[in-house]
């Protein structure tokens, strides 16, 4: 269209002029977030260095990193991280599979929702840690009970997310599928899946967060390895630096796995990303 040409010209001009400050802020903004923790950590390091505090109960960053380095050198760190990652990975996988299946069934099929959902919601109201004694009695003190506990934690947000997403798919978009006479499977593949994907990714990230929460609970109960064991060990032997080290590693792993989900989903959600795409195109 001829009438569109000037408008196009204009929009690309504004995009160009906006690109320079946005590139700056893309890196500057996360840096801004790092400022406060960095100042606090350096400040505390300084306070201990000056001798105003002995830093025994609240070890300065240098001592925490020294502990991490020690653990890494002895190979302990890898063993603990591997154990925890394994538990979170398995628990997350089972929780996601169960949550996705049941969430999809009760979202898609209203009879199933009426049958299933009240029970699931009632179970959800139970604080999940209340299951721990029962799981230990049923499944033993070793890996199975831990993985099940994590799976339970992951299950609920994924279930709710999938069901909610399916229920909120726009009826008008569904009708487009009907007009083009999509079969059941095609309707799911071409309309339903892309429509629920954004909410699904969010529920996966929430579920993963809960998975990390529950792995700590599971490992505090009784474990001979894992980051949660490091926490407990540090408490019992009075090693606050080891506790802090485990906390730091939890934070790094949690953020890293969350970022993995985000990155893996990004190519499928480009249509939604309002800023990056509009400027890049």
């Amino acid at each position, binding site marked *: *269209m001829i009438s*569109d040409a000037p408008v*196009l010209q204009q929009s690309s001009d504004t995009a160009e002029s906006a690109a320079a400050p946005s590139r700056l802020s893309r890196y500057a903004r996360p840096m801004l977030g790092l400022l406060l923790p960095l100042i606090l950590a350096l400040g505390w390091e300084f306070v201990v260095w000056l001798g105003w505090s002995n830093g025994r109960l609240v070890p300065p960053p240098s001592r925490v990193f020294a502990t991490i380095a020690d653990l890494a050198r002895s190979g302990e760190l890898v063993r603990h991280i591997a154990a925890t990652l394994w538990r979170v990975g398995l628990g997350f996988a089972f929780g996601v599979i169960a949550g996705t299946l049941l969430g999809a069934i009760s979202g898609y099929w209203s009879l199933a929702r009426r049958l299933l959902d009240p029970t699931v919601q009632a179970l959800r109201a139970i604080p999940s840690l209340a299951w721990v004694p029962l799981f230990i009695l049923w499944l033993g003190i070793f890996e199975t009970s831990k993985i099940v506990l994590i799976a339970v934690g992951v299950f609920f947000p994924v279930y709710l997310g999938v069901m909610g997403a399916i229920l909120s798919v726009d009826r*008008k*978009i569904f009708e*487009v599928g009907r007009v*083009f006479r999509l079969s059941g499977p095609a309707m799911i593949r071409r309309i339903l899946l892309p429509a629920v994907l954004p909410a699904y990714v969010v529920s996966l990230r929430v579920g993963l967060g809960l998975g990390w929460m529950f792995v700590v609970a599971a490992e505090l109960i009784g474990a001979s390895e894992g980051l949660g064991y490091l926490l407990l060990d540090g408490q019992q032997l009075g090693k606050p630096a080891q506790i802090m080290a485990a906390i730091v590693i939890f934070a790094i792993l949690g953020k890293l796995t969350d970022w993995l989900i985000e990155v893996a989903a990004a190519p499928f959600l480009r*249509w*939604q990303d309002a800023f990056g*795409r509009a400027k890049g195109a």
Partner: protein
Amino acid sequence: MLALDRISKTYPNGVHALARFSADIKQGEILAIIGGSGCGKSTLLRAIAGLDRASSGTVTLDSEAISSPHAKIGIIFQEPRLLPWLSVADNIGFGLADLPAAERREKVARALARVGLADKAQAWPRELSGGQAQRVAIARALVPQPEVLLLDEPFSALDAFTRRDLQDHLLDLWADTRPTLILVTHDVDEAVVLADRVLVMRPRPGRLFDQIEINLTRPRDRNSPLFENFKRSVLTSLDRSLDRSVPDRDATQGPGQAMWW
């Protein structure tokens, strides 16, 4: 030929939306259906599209009964209803999934050029203006070459200039393959610009009130006195349709209703 035979629709909540609506629509005809709100225009269109079942009565296209969406019947809604996760090109090709990729690409490219959006092929729907999005919706509905295209107030959400532009554009596209167009509207101007025949409906329950043939050659001059004449006669009919003291012209109404006194 599309035949509508005594179509009635009562919704589960008891609303009597449509009563014994009959019409025959010739292949290639442009029909406008106009009426006040609640006169069952959209209900009728959804029944023809096969999206909703009529309570009674039949829709037949070339002696084939329509009860579910049909390959020969396309529909354009009031909103573009583009799929936000598909590019403009993929949206237009949405109904062509059965074709080989090369053929689909070629048809989509031709349709894009035809609606003047070739440079937007890889854009996302949210990057389009309202008029552009509706043009993509028109292309998506036309690209499988339907025999009948239904339009449910397709331009009512657009500003006056864009609306005129798209009305002309629609006629232009219609001339390519000359499908039957059935246009539901509440805009008298739009009905007279586009249609060969205007059906006026009256509400509660929705039923046929009047029909007006528009014997004007295309392209039509919106400012000619003849055009004004047709507009006035549609308006007059529309006013009468909303006046409860005017009896139905349709003799097929039950006798009890006419002699309620």
